[in-house]
């Protein structure tokens, strides 16, 4: 989720808008000092705003709907609409009618959608359908799928541009995420935002860093801000870094230790499997409720044993990792300082 500080309900206080993993945008209303617990932003019919996939609070399971066709009726390749899962959302007055519309990012397909507000900030009336956002005559699309969106006047022409960041391949060696900006090519008189083609600000990661993390490689979440106060916009970017630590030149004794540690680890893993198999076997053939109760009892009976095995496994893994470092994937926040001093846009009010 990417928090956006914006006066969403027009009461003069900054609220926090964020699209979250349940598949819908939320808002935490501010009173000038603190914020209330977040609530779903609903459409004019009282339904949650989603693309397709969403967490169903009634069935307590993931669900999907065609109620909110993510293409807004526009067929995609092969005539099939893309399946969407919203995890990012920003408030932005898209059509300059004085109220916030919602721009939605899809982390599954990489497309960007618009949900118009036909009401006001005080009494929003969000439409029931999504519209596909275009960049020129093509749908706005991040091949790395959308991690997050930001509205920012990147080129300081008085018009809000759209910054789109990519998830990229989250675990493997395929291309990672990057950050691009779509400049608003309209004019101040246009009643709707128009965007040109993507301009890369941070190239999608090729990964492969050695020894130390060197940049965010996947799941990039940028914020454009004049971080160092020099008058231009820098990028603050959260994301996962992936790197391979330098291999160590092990002594003979250390090599022997590693061999033993791995054997011990295999033994612990086998013991864990045996314990778990026994638990599940004891519940075979039972009804759902009875099985759940029995499982709970079984786990309680061996909790100390499981905890002990987990602790041993963790300690063994940590020691092996010290001697034989494996590929790392850790999240950080990075600063990209703008050197060009060519962009010093305004993010006030809508970020």
């Amino acid at each position, binding site marked *: 989720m*990417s*928090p956006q*500080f914006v006066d969403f309900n027009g009461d003069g206080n900054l609220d926090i808008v964020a699209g979250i993993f349940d598949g819908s945008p939320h808002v935490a209303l501010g009173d000038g*000092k603190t914020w209330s617990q977040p609530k779903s932003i609903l459409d004019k019919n009282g339904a949650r705003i989603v693309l397709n996939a969403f967490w169903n609070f009634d069935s307590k399971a993931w669900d999907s709907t065609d109620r909110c066709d993510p293409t807004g009726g526009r067929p995609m390749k092969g005539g099939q609409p893309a399946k969407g899962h919203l995890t990012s959302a920003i408030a932005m007055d898209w059509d300059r009618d004085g109220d916030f519309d919602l721009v939605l990012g899809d982390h599954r397909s990489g497309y960007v959608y618009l949900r118009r507000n036909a009401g006001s900030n005080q009494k929003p009336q969000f439409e029931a359908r999504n519209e596909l956002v275009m960049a020129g005559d093509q749908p706005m699309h991040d091949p790395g799928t959308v991690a997050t969106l930001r509205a920012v006047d990147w080129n300081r022409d008085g018009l809000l541009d759209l910054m789109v960041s990519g998830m990229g391949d989250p675990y493997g060696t395929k291309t990672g995420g990057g950050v691009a900006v779509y400049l608003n090519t309209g004019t101040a008189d246009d009643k709707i935002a128009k965007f040109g083609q993507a301009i890369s600000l941070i190239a999608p990661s090729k990964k492969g860093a050695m020894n130390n993390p060197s940049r965010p490689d996947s799941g990039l979440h940028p914020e454009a801000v004049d971080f160092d106060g020099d008058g231009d916009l820098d990028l603050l970017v*959260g994301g996962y870094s992936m790197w391979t630590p330098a291999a160590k030149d092990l002594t003979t004794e250390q090599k022997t230790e590693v061999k033993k540690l791995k054997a011990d680890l295999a033994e612990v893993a086998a013991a864990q499997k045996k314990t778990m198999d026994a638990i599940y076997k004891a519940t075979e053939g039972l009804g759902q409720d009875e099985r759940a109760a029995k499982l709970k009892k079984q786990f309680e009976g061996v909790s100390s044993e499981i905890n002990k095995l987990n602790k041993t496994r963790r300690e063994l893994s940590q020691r092996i990792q010290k001697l034989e470092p494996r590929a790392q994937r850790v999240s950080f926040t990075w600063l990209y300082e703008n050197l060009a001093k060519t962009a010093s846009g305004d993010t006030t009010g809508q970020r």
Partner: protein
Amino acid sequence: MQTQLPHLATLALTCATLTSFAFAQGTQFADPVQVSAGDKLLGKGRMYPSPAMHDINGDGRLDVFIGDLRGHITYALRQADGTFSSEMKLKDAKGKVLDFGNW
């Protein structure tokens, strides 16, 4: 002359658009550096950390907020020397952690 005005306007708009494009296209960044908060790295280990800046205490300096996939937000105050304080959890008026993660 009158008929040329639209052309001039179009030319001016085209120049402005091209200049804007060049500005964005030509943006260069220094090699990225990790940001710290207190004695730790900002957002380290969080699930998909997502930064945002906002002056929460009204001291004129933008503080940094980090949202994550679990739906929690932390913030770190910007000090006068430009560094950040340790991260703190963002809470509501009742002291309960603000929780966007409801699934």
